[in-house]
């Protein structure tokens, strides 16, 4: 059964039976998760279901107490966000995390500057590559690349953050509610961007509470409840009602080891 709801080939990112406790609170109780290359995997669940904790384990913010994380089928340890980056996993945080006074190119290359003479940065080349990457992903920035991102709209800033992740991620992009703070048009733009990132063959993981949006965008949906995965669906297998049933515990298609 689990094969029918799995993806194609080897998962780009996989979690097996992750346990994570904070004091007496068991946030993750044997949580598993899979994301496949070239697919958008949505992670849904109610508040407190453990989505964010799982994402933080996968992006190197938390270390799991038990369980395994695998990248391309190989077990890995991800002690820091930098380690995640080194494994080709980039995370787009809910609160963006761009330096508002720097321009888009400086943000995209922050911490990975192209250098000249070892100590100087090559702003022209960084701008060129940023522009090329934005064009390829269809990030329509009206402003030119010289203005600080503080003057961008929320959607544009989110696009910069996603484009930055897409530029550096070799395997996986994780997005924590990428459209939560955006208007209708901006949300549509960001969803288009998610599509073009997927087309590059990356595994896209995204958390959302917007179930119609999840059904529209996701190739696979994984549902979490009480710190573990309770259901998996392929595109078209579940409507909003079935998702709500899974989230609330009325439906499950997966055995959970407690």
């Amino acid at each position, binding site marked *: 059964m689990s094969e029918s709801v799995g993806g194609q080939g080897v998962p780009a990112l996989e979690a097996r039976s992750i346990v994570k406790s904070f004091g007496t609170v068991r946030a993750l109780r044997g949580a598993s998760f899979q994301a496949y290359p070239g697919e958008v995997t949505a992670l849904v669940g109610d508040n407190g279901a453990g989505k964010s904790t799982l994402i933080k384990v996968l992006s190197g913010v938390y270390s799991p107490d038990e369980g395994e994380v695998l990248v391309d089928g190989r077990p890995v340890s991800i002690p820091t966000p*930098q380690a995640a980056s080194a494994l080709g996993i980039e995370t787009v*945080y809910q609160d963006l*995390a761009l330096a508002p006074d720097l321009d888009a190119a400086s943000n995209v290359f922050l911490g*990975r*500057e192209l250098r000249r003479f070892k100590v*100087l*940065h090559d702003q022209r080349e960084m701008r060129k590559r940023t522009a090329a990457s934005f064009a390829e992903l269809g990030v329509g920035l*009206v402003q030119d690349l010289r203005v600080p991102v503080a003057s961008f709209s929320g959607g544009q800033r989110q696009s910069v953050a996603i484009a930055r992740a897409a530029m550096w991620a070799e395997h996986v992009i994780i997005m924590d509610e990428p459209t939560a703070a955006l208007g209708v*048009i901006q949300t549509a*733009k960001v969803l288009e961007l998610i599509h073009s990132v997927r087309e590059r063959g990356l595994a896209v993981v995204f958390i959302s509470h917007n179930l119609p949006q999840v059904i529209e965008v996701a190739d696979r949906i994984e549902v979490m409840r009480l710190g573990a995965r309770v259901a998996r669906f392929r595109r078209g297998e579940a409507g909003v009602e079935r998702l709500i049933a899974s989230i609330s515990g009325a439906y499950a298609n997966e055995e959970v080891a407690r």
Partner: protein
Amino acid sequence: MSETTKALDAQVAADAAAAEEARPSRLRQLVATPIMATLAFLAVLLLAFSILAPGKFGTTSNLTLLAQNVAILTVASVGTTFVIATAGIDLSIPSGIILGEVFAAQALMMISAGDGKAIDVPADQTRAGYVLAALAGALVAGLVIGAVNGVLVAYMRIPPMLATLGTLGAGLGVALLIRKGVNVATYALNPVATGTLIPGVPGLTNLVLIGLIVVVIGYVALHHSVFGRHTLAIGSSEEAARRVGLRVERHLLKVYVLGGLANGFAGFLSLAYFSTTSVGGHTTDNLQAITAVALGGTSLFGGVATILGTLIGVWIPAVLQNGFIIIGVNPYWQMIAVGIVLVLAVWSDQLRRRSQNRR
């Protein structure tokens, strides 16, 4: 999907049209940048005083004097521009300068020269070795106070204003203890300030030349180096810098060390120019440097900084002071004028930021 796409295209077109309409001409864009406004203000001042005091203000000798007078403050201000770019502040500039002077003097006193000490050597008998020893002493002083500031701010998380207020007082105390409250004079370093390494250029004494070199180094380091980029990023959003893997604490430590080194170097120059240490002097140098940096358009909230602006910001108070004296206005007016200009400069920065972040 086609519905959404159509709506998107319409929105993009509308955005583009709005942006096109809102985009000012190149010239207006240039004038609107804060650095051009302050540069224009300085130009107006220079012009006004030249007209009001013909043959007195605009002379080579007066402008040379001005350039000499601002050179030392320029060095300290360039250093503190980096500190302020991280949304920090350095109030310990006076103790950095004075300790720089004192350590330089102590270094000269440790060297035997002929039948006396290097500190007693007249200007025309000094040697490169003496100068280098004094320089090393001054830089060590700056390094120590900068490192203390950096550890307090970056690792112990003490607010920069209080951390550097502490090292301001403590540093002055150390200087007074070392010198037992008595200043020491030396002419051994005079050529560093008053000599002319590049003869033939009017006004280009060594002191002015050194100030210019520091400005150029500061400019390249802030605006064209990865170090400067990271400095601005940390000042703009420490969290964003941390998330992309910058070592924020270590970088802040480096920035405060850089600020300390600039102050120690300014102390070395001060000893060379004035031929004496000045324990008990330099008391307002920190406020003057911060004024210069803020006047130049560097934001005290961090993330936005300009070395050329700082250079202009150093000149404005100096020109006002010098000009008022020459045209016979009570120089106390300079303090009032600088105060007003400073508040106006910071206010315009606020307005600019607010309009930028309006969305």
